[in-house]
């Protein structure tokens, strides 16, 4: 069927592209033509291989030989040796840093695969609306194993041994949480799945529910078996209609198979699941607020203790875990705690899903073992910074987290390292920022989010965050005052120290972390009235450099507000009173005749 004997795959990922992969492709095509091989050999440009540090990468098919650091000059040798003579070009092969040996093909160098998909194991593989496909991939086997072969204590023990910690942000040991709920006496207990994913820029829970809803259902049932709960509730964002629909279908199918309901798998264990909807309140990710919301109340958190495991939904013992946490459970049961614990770092086991976004090439959902470095995530998986710009920081932990700079690129990611670096794991948003992002504006952005999402119950969060925001706002508007930085610090510390719930206790983190890493930017705003990243509009204006302007009218034609005037072939002018500082003229000008001052 295939006409070509050999295919040359050239990485077209942005990282490699900037390192001349286009050029390499052209050289290959020319050479093949020259050698008269163009009917036998095909050149294909692919997406990112995720090994950008070693790029440009060329992969030969069908034998999967993997060449690294390929330059246009290497093309001829590859054709002569590999294509014609069938011999690998050893010097272009990847050398294992430990053994110093060359690795011939990608099959034997799976360590280049930085990701391991545990929580996402079925996402993108199975039809989420077909329970049989889930079962074919060991679905519900873990539940069967628990009900048929293990006592609740044994299951809890297995989870504890696995070292799994809550993936919703806090990182509380999951097994311990289950154990506490199991030990509390209660006539009725509840198992809750927190699917009120709300970190701006995190969407792994949605993806899991959309791609593999049964894994959550199965785990909740296992949790019910362990803790003695017969009712499960999924608290899900109403803004996720597709996830809701797939979850509903999955629950229905599980009921039809008797995998939910009474006497599951003949074990005498009863369990069923209901769906509750969030309604657009980020604070409902906090478990006490979530429970109040499920009870039909305002989602205001209450002081802990009592913890939900003692007094939760309707005052009954309630175990709350998030979607990603649940998605790990069946694998732990099926493959064993030891297997799971072999992945990750000493105190953080397994993998973590991140939503990689921002100024990065390969925006997407990734799952890496705990302990992977930020550098690997950003450069190898993420394909580096968009547009070849300079990396400035990566923000993790959403509005509760902080910025991590260059200095932390080689820090292995786990719960504890991120906290000591001044950020946190959070639910797994990872927003990459480049030189164009103003860190004061970013801090303000997060504060604005917190401000809108604060429930208002406690004074430090309700008023303190407003004051923080106001100070940041005036700094970005060039109205910063001497002493503002001191105020930001003191206020942040007090808000952290005195707020009622996790939202308030972490809300100043973006401020504190930007202050500690980017003090110079704050000072530039306050003292020099300048935004180094050129993002704070009040502090910048666009002007035409008369000598460079050719009068091409491109800026004039693109200005959305008609602020630019000028005749063809004569110098154009920007009317500052009309200019909205959108920067379109700056981007469109081909002659660098518009500058930001």
């Amino acid at each position, binding site marked *: 069927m295939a006409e070509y004997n050999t295919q040359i795959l050239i990485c077209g990922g942005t990282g490699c592209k900037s390192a001349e992969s286009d050029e390499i492709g052209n050289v290959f095509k020319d050479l093949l033509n020259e050698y008269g091989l163009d009917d036998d050999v095909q050149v294909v440009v692919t997406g990112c291989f995720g090994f950008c540090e070693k790029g440009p990468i060329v992969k030969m098919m069908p034998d999967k030989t993997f060449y690294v650091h390929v330059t246009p000059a290497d093309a001829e040798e590859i054709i002569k040796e590999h294509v014609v003579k069938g011999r690998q070009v050893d010097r272009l092969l990847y050398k294992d840093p430990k053994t110093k040996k060359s690795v011939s093909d990608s099959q034997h160098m799976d360590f280049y695969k930085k990701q391991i998909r545990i929580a996402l194991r079925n996402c993108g593989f199975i039809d989420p609306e077909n329970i049989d496909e889930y079962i074919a991939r060991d679905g519900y086997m873990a539940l069967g194993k628990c009900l048929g072969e293990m006592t609740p204590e044994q299951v809890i023990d297995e989870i504890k041994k696995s070292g799994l910690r809550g993936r919703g942000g806090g990182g509380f040991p999951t097994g311990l949480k289950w154990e506490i709920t199991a030990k509390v006496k209660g006539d009725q207990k509840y198992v809750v799945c927190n699917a009120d994913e709300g970190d701006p820029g995190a969407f792994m829970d949605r993806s899991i529910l959309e791609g593999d809803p049964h894994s959550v259902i199965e785990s909740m049932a296992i949790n019910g078996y362990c803790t003695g709960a017969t009712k499960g509730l999924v608290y899900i964002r109403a803004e996720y209609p597709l996830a809701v629909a797939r979850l509903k279908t999955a629950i229905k199918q599980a009921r039809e198979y008797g995998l939910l309901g009474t006497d599951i798998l003949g074990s005498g264990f009863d369990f069923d699941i209901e769906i509750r909807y969030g309604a657009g309140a980020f604070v409902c990710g906090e478990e006490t607020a979530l429970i109040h919301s499920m009870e039909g109340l305002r989602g205001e958190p209450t002081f802990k203790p009592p913890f939900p495991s003692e007094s939760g939904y309707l005052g009954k013992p309630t175990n709350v875990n998030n979607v990603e946490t649940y998605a790990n459970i069946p694998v732990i049961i099926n493959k064993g705690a030891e297997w799971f614990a072999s992945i990750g770092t000493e105190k953080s086991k397994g993998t973590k899903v991140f939503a990689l976004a921002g100024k990065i090439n390969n925006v997407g959902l990734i799952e890496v073992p705990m302990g992977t470095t930020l550098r690997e995530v950003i450069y190898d998986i993420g394909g580096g910074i968009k547009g070849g710009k300079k990396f400035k920081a990566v923000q993790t932990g959403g509005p509760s987290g902080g910025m991590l700079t260059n200095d932390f690129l080689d820090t292995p990611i786990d719960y504890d390292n991120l906290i000591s670096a001044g950020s946190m794991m959070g639910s797994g948003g990872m927003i990459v920022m480049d030189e164009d992002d103003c860190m004061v504006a970013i801090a303000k952005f997060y504060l604005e989010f917190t401000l809108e999402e*604060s429930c208002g119950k406690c*004074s430090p969060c309700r008023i303190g965050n407003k004051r923080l925001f*106001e100070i940041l706002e005036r700094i970005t508007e060039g109205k910063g005052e001497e002493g503002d930085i001191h105020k930001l610090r003191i*206020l942040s510390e007090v808000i952290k120290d005195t707020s009622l719930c996790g939202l308030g206790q972490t809300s100043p983190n973006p401020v504190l972390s930007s202050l500690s890493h980017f003090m110079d930017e704050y000072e530039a705003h306050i003292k020099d009235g300048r935004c180094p990243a050129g993002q704070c509009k009040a502090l910048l204006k666009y002007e035409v450099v008369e000598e460079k302007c050719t009068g091409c009218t491109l800026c004039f034609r693109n200005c959305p507000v008609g602020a630019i005037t000028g005749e063809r072939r004569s110098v154009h002018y920007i009317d500052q009173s009309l200019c909205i500082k959108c920067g379109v003229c700056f981007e469109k000008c081909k002659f660098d005749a518009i500058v930001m001052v």
Partner: protein
Amino acid sequence: MEMINLTIDNKPVVVKKGTTVLEAATSIGIHIPTLCYMKLDDLNIENKPGGCRICVVEVKGRRNLAPACCTDAAEGMEISTHTIRAINARRTVMELILSDHPSDCLICAKSGNCDLQDMAHRLGIREIHYKGAQSMYREDTSPAIIREINKCILCRRCEMMCNEVQTVGVLSAINRGFDAVVAPAFEMNLDHSVCTYCGQCVAVCPTGALTEVNNTAAVVRALYDPTKTVVVQTAPAVRAALGEEFGMEAGTLVTGKLVAALRRLGFDYVFDTDFAADLTIMEEGAELLNRLGRHLQGDPDVKLPILTSCCPAWVKFFEHQFPDLKEIPSTARSPQQMFGAIAKSYFAEKLGKKREDLVVVSIMPCLAKKYECGRDEFAVDGNPDVDYAITTRELASLIKISNIKFTSLPNEDFDSPLGESTGAGVIFGTTGGVIEAAVRTAYELYTGKDLPRIDFHELRGMEGIRKATIDFNGLPLNIGIAHGLGNARQLLEEIRAGKSSFHAIEIMSCPGGCIGGGGQPYHHGDADVIKKRQMAIYKEDSNKTIRKSHENPYIKKLYEEFLGKPLGHKAHELLHTQYFDRS
């Protein structure tokens, strides 16, 4: 009982399990400041949202500061209440709260009585470092209560009183974040809502966000109007609380000084609502015996239990929430309105004046009385039976404005005839008092015998719902008592469900009855104050020579000269009323 050992500021303390750090600290004389927290012990009322964060303390080993009010003491805990960290945090939080609060203290109704002001003073706040936007809400004035929500600090006490204690449900936290505030639905005016004007929200508000409508200026105008004869009545609960406004110990009876003060203010006649309370017992007692008698004869139309109707907030409550039961309460008007009706008819006649020339002012422990005297049915041709109702607090303010040194006043007596009353009249001021007064009279009228004992201790106390059976010479009369509208609701729902076995029920809206009214001096969260007022009321009762309403000679005279007999035509016209469906 499991005991817990901990140290607070290096002092060891042993407390029962379940004790909070705040309570443990208090027990060894450490006074941790609180703002949103409020606990009225014997009344079972607690507000503990953990929202203001003023009471934060340092707990060794914990990452964050902990709110003392909702942190339970735990074994081995080491608490520090005044480290630099805790003090700074507390002061900063206070500054934040003040940064979103108007600073017009000098002219605020609550000045001098404001918990927030006190706390700012106590924490030594001299500067607000974090200034910024303040929440802006419009002011809302109703017949009894003013809401100035810009002053709300979201302690949620009013919300708790309105919902959990009173189950009226007018107030709720609304909006979110910086815009969060406590308000009625759709931020509507209180007078469009189902508010009963019980005033318990005002009684607990730590700031000037909720205050009473002030009618003192109108009263002063009347006092200085030479064409008017100004008659004043004072409710029983006022005499047990007014002294507090002048630094006297809670529970000090100041009846004589109260009369003296009113006279010095220029009232032409200083009368007593207790007189009208005795009158109420005559009418309500007669109604009870009438219904009871018909019931015993098997009349199917008669409705029991009979419910007291002295409390205007309670009346408004059932008109909104239980209009289907509006035939059950006694039709007797409240003592305030009976007084007004008699003053502007019987007494006006005696003076030879027209009702328009009389101004009737009442001194009430209550905010709903302001609303009650404005109800249309209590006016003749637009002239109200009671012109102005002012609260105990407003009276204190009038006395202060008028340069009267209250504590040095001599004791004086009420004027006659509408100032003469019995011990039964005075106990109207406490929960259980109305029904005890009714029983004293009804027993003797029903059985024709003298009471063997006058004090019915089984009807007294502070429990929210009390039940007792009184032997009416072989007839067991089942009495119920509820104070606090939430408790009333429970009894009403039993009635609605046909499960009530009571013959008579006394209902008072305010916890403790009128002594705990919304117009009384602020208790600042100290339930003992209310208990002491109750003791004062019972003391006043036992000091009286006549303690049964039907033995009040001036009441007898009133019937002889003017009213005829209880439930008679004239009595019906002047002393009874009807209720409206307001649902």
